[in-house]
C-alpha cells in the first residue's frame, strides 16, 4: 500500500488546531516506547511527567507559577514569529528584565510604597526591550541576522549576572554567596491566593495573553505583523514598513520577556542569583509554536509545558529520572508538531493500485 501527499485547495483550519493536540498525545505514546527501549521506565516517565502534575492538586500552584513566565514570553515570541522575526534570545531579554528590576529593587531597598513594584515592572519591561533593541538595530540598519545576534547576547547576559552578583551587587550579609540581598517587602510580588505560592504574575500572564489576542486579531498592528511575515513584498505595497515591523516585533517580544524576568525575580526568587536563567526563554519558543503563534493557544501550550517542567521534577524524585528527560520530551513534542504542519496544506491519499498499471 502506498501513500501520496496531495495539496489541499485551502489550508485546513481543522489541522491547525488538531495537530498540536496530536503532537502532545504522540509524544506521550512514542516517548513511553522510546524511553522503555533505551532502558528507562518509559510508562512511568510519561505518567510522572504528563499526568501526575494534573492529578495531584498540590502541584497545581506550581503549574500556575511555571506557566506564567512561559505564557508571557510565549505571547511575545508568537507576535514576533508571526512577523517572521526570529527572536530566539528571549532568555537574554528575560535576564536583562530581571536585572533591571533587581536594580530598582536594590536602589529602593528599605523603602516602602506602592510605586516600587510598578516601577520595577516598567524597568524590567524596558530592560528586556532595550536588549532586544540591539538585534533590531543591527537587523534594520545592516541586515544582520537576528537569530544569531539575539542568541549571542543571551550568552553574554548570563555572564553579566555572574559578574553583578559576584561583585557590585553582592549581598554584604550573604556569607560570600554570589547573590544579591533579598528584596524588601515592597519589592516582592504579593501572592494572590493565601497559603500558596501563586503570585500576581499568574493573572498578569492571562491578561497579557488576552490583550495580545485582541490586538493580533483585530488591530492594524496585528495585521501588520501578519502581513509582513506572510509576504514582505506585499506588505511594502500595502504601506507597511518592514523595518518598523522588525523594531516593533523585537521590542514587544523583548519587552514581554523582560516583564516575565521582573515577575520571576520579584516573585519566586525575591533576589538575583546565578541560577536565575532557567531556560524559560528557550522553552517559550516551543510554547509559541505549540500555541500556533496564537496568544490564546499560547495559554494552553504554556500550561502543557509547565506540566512537563513540574512533572520532570516529580519524575526526578519518584523514579529517579534525570531532569533533562523533560527537554527530550519537549523537543519531541516540537518535532511532532512540525511534522504535522504538512497536514495543514496537504492531505494524505492512498495511491490507487491501478495507477501503477499505466506504465508497465
Amino acid at each position: 500500500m502506498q501513500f501520496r501527499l496531495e495539496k489541499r485547495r485551502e489550508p485546513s483550519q481543522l489541522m491547525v488546531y488538531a495537530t498540536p493536540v496530536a503532537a502532545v498525545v504522540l509524544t506521550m505514546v512514542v516517548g513511553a516506547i522510546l524511553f522503555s527501549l533505551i532502558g528507562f521506565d518509559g510508562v512511568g516517565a510519561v505518567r510522572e511527567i504528563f499526568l501526575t502534575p494534573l492529578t495531584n492538586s498540590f502541584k497545581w500552584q506550581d503549574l500556575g507559577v511555571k506557566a506564567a513566565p512561559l505564557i508571557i514570553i510565549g505571547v511575545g515570541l508568537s507576535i514576533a514569529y508571526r512577523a517572521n522575526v526570529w527572536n530566539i534570545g528571549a532568555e537574554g531579554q528575560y535576564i536583562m528584565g530581571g536585572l533591571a528590576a533587581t536594580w530598582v529593587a536594590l536602589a529602593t531597598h528599605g523603602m516602602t510604597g506602592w510605586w516600587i513594584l510598578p516601577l520595577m515592572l516598567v524597568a524590567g519591561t524596558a530592560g528586556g526591550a532595550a536588549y532586544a533593541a540591539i538585534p533590531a538595530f543591527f537587523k534594520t540598519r545592516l541586515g544582520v541576522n537576528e537569530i544569531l545576534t539575539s542568541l549571542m547576547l543571551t550568552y553574554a547576559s548570563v555572564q553579566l549576572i555572574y559578574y553583578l552578583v559576584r561583585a557590585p551587587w553582592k549581598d554584604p550579609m550573604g556569607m560570600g554567596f554570589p547573590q544579591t540581598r533579598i528584596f524588601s517587602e515592597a519589592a516582592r510580588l504579593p501572592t494572590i491566593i493565601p497559603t500558596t505560592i501563586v503570585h500576581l504574575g499568574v493573572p498578569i500572564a492571562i491578561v497579557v495573553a488576552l490583550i495580545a489576542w485582541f490586538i493580533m486579531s483585530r488591530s492594524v498592528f496585528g495585521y501588520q505583523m501578519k502581513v509582513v511575515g506572510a509576504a514582505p513584498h506585499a506588505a511594502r505595497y500595502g504601506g507597511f514598513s518592514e523595518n518598523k515591523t522588525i523594531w516593533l516585533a523585537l521590542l514587544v517580544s523583548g519587552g514581554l520577556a523582560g516583564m516575565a524576568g521582573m515577575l520571576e525575580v520579584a516573585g519566586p526568587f525575591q533576589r538575583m542569583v546565578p541560577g536565575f536563567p532557567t531556560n524559560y526563554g528557550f522553552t517559550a519558543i516551543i510554547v509559541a509554536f505549540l500555541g500556533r503563534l496564537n496568544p490564546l493557544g499560547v495559554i494552553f501550550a504554556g500550561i502543557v509545558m509547565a506540566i512537563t517542567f513540574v512533572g520532570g521534577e516529580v519524575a526526578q524524585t519518584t523514579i529517579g529520572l534525570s531532569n533533562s528527560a523533560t527537554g527530550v520530551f519537549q523537543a519531541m513534542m516540537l518535532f511532532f508538531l512540525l511534522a504535522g504542519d504538512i497536514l495543514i496544506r496537504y492531505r494524505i491519499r492512498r495511491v490507487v493500485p491501478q495507477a501503477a498499471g499505466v506504465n508497465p
Partner: protein
Amino acid sequence: MPFRLELTGITKRFPGVLANDNVTFAVKPGEIHALLGENGAGKSTLVKMIYGIMQPDAGEMRWDGEPVVVPNPKAARKLGIGMVFQHFSLFEALTVLENIALGMDSKIPSRELEARIRAVMAQYGLLLDPHRTVATLSVGERQRIEIVRALLLEPKLLIMDEPTSVLTPQEVEQLFEVLRKLAAEGCSILYISHKLHEIKALCDTATILRGGKLVDTCDPRQETSRSMAEKMIGAGLKDIIRAAGRTIGLPKLVVSRLSTAKTGHFEVPVDDVSFTVRAGEIFGIAGVAGNGQNALLDALSGEIRSQDKDAITIDGFPLGLLDTTGRRKRGLCAVPEERNGHAAVGDFTLSDNSVLTARDRLGMVMLGLINSGAAKTYTGKVIAEFAVKALGPASIAGSLSGGNLQKYIMGREILQKPSVLVVSQPTWGVDAGAAAAIHQALVDLAAAGSAIVVISQDLDELRALCDTLAVINMGHLSPARPSGEVSVEEIGLLMGGVHGQTEARDAIPA
C-alpha cells in the same frame, strides 16, 4: 525519406479538460514547423509529450519512421530531441560554462566542454563568454545559453517554446538566422508561438491548434495573418474596444525627472523619467523585461519614495515624498506585476487582502482597529462586479487561479475609484476572456475620467488599449507618442537599445 517526427491520434486528458484531442501531424527533416495556437490551446502539453515530460493517454509517435515511446526527457535527448523552454532553467550565480555542464547528461571534462561550446558558438554566431556569470547577462543572452546547451547534443529536432516573447525585434531577427541555418543543415525545428508575423517570416508549415484539436495544417506563406488568426481564434476577430467616446482632459498625473537609486545588483533603476498623463487617457509603457519597469512601478506606487516632492504630482498636488498609504489617500493606486506575494498575500483570505490596499480609502480602520465587516462587504462587491470565480470573501487568495486572482486585484483597485491607476502586466498569463474583461474595466475607468498607466511587454495589448505610448529602455523613457502614429518597427528600435549596449559590453575582452 521518412518523416523526422510523426504524431498520430495523440490524446491527453487532464481532470476536466481534454488538453489534446486526436492530434495528428508530421515534421519533415530540415523543416521549420510552427505550432500555432492561443494560450490554453494545448501546444505546451503536446510538446511536453514529445519531450517525454508527460505521457499521452492514446496515440502513436514515430521517430524517423520507427514507433517510439519517450518515457522521460533524457530519452528524448538520446533520440536527438532538444528543447528550449520559455522559462529558462538557469543558475544566476553560476557561469555560462557551469550552467551548460549541469545540463549535459554525461560528464565531459570542462576544458573539452568549453572547446565544444566555443565551436558551436562560432558556428552559429551565438556570441557569449563562457566564463561570465549568468546574473550579468541580458534575457537574450540567457536564451543563447539554452540554445547552445541544446545544440551541443547535436539534435535532429529542436523544440522552441515561445522563444521570442522576451526578445527585442532585433534579437528575434538574430534568432531566426540561427534557426534557418540549423534547418539548412537538416535539423527540424518545431516552433511554438502565437505571433503570426513571425510564423509567416520563418516557418515552412504551420499546424494550428484550437481547444486541444488540430484545426488545420497549412503553408503560412500562402495565408494572410488574418486568415490564420481566424483559424486560431475560431470566431471572426473581435475588434478592440479602444477610445469609444472617451474625452481626454487636463493633465492629471505629472511625473518629472523621476529617478531611483540602484538597489540590488541586477535591478535596473529608473533614470530621469518624465511624462504626463491626462484625465481619461491610457498611457502605455512598452519595453523588454528587466529594463526598469519594476523600479518605475515601485517609484510610482510609493514603495520607493522620491527625494523630490514634485517628482510626482496629481492635479498639481505633490506626492513624491509620500509612501504608498499617503499616495493612495491622494487617489493613486497601483497594481504590480507579481500577483501572489506582491499585489496579494496568497495565505490570506480575499477579505484580508482587501484590507491591504483599501483600508484607508474605504474607511475600514477606526482607532487602529480593523472593521472586518466593511472589508467583507467590499470584497463581496469586487467578486460580484468582476465575476471573480471564488467561493466568497473568505476564500484564500492562493487558491484562486491566476486569472481570477488578477481580476480580484484589478477589481479591488478599480472599485476604489482611483484618480490615477498604474498597472504592470495587467493580463500576463490570464486567459482571453479574463483579459478582455480587465481591458474593458480599464477603458471604463478611463472613461470615468481617471488617468491610467499600463506597463506591459505585450505590444499588441498596448497598441489596442492605449492612447499614448512610450518605451522604457535601461531605465530611460522615450518621448511619448500617440499610439496610432507609431509603428511596431519604431517601438522595436527603441526597445532594442538594450541590445546594442550588451553587444558593446561583449566586445570588451573580459
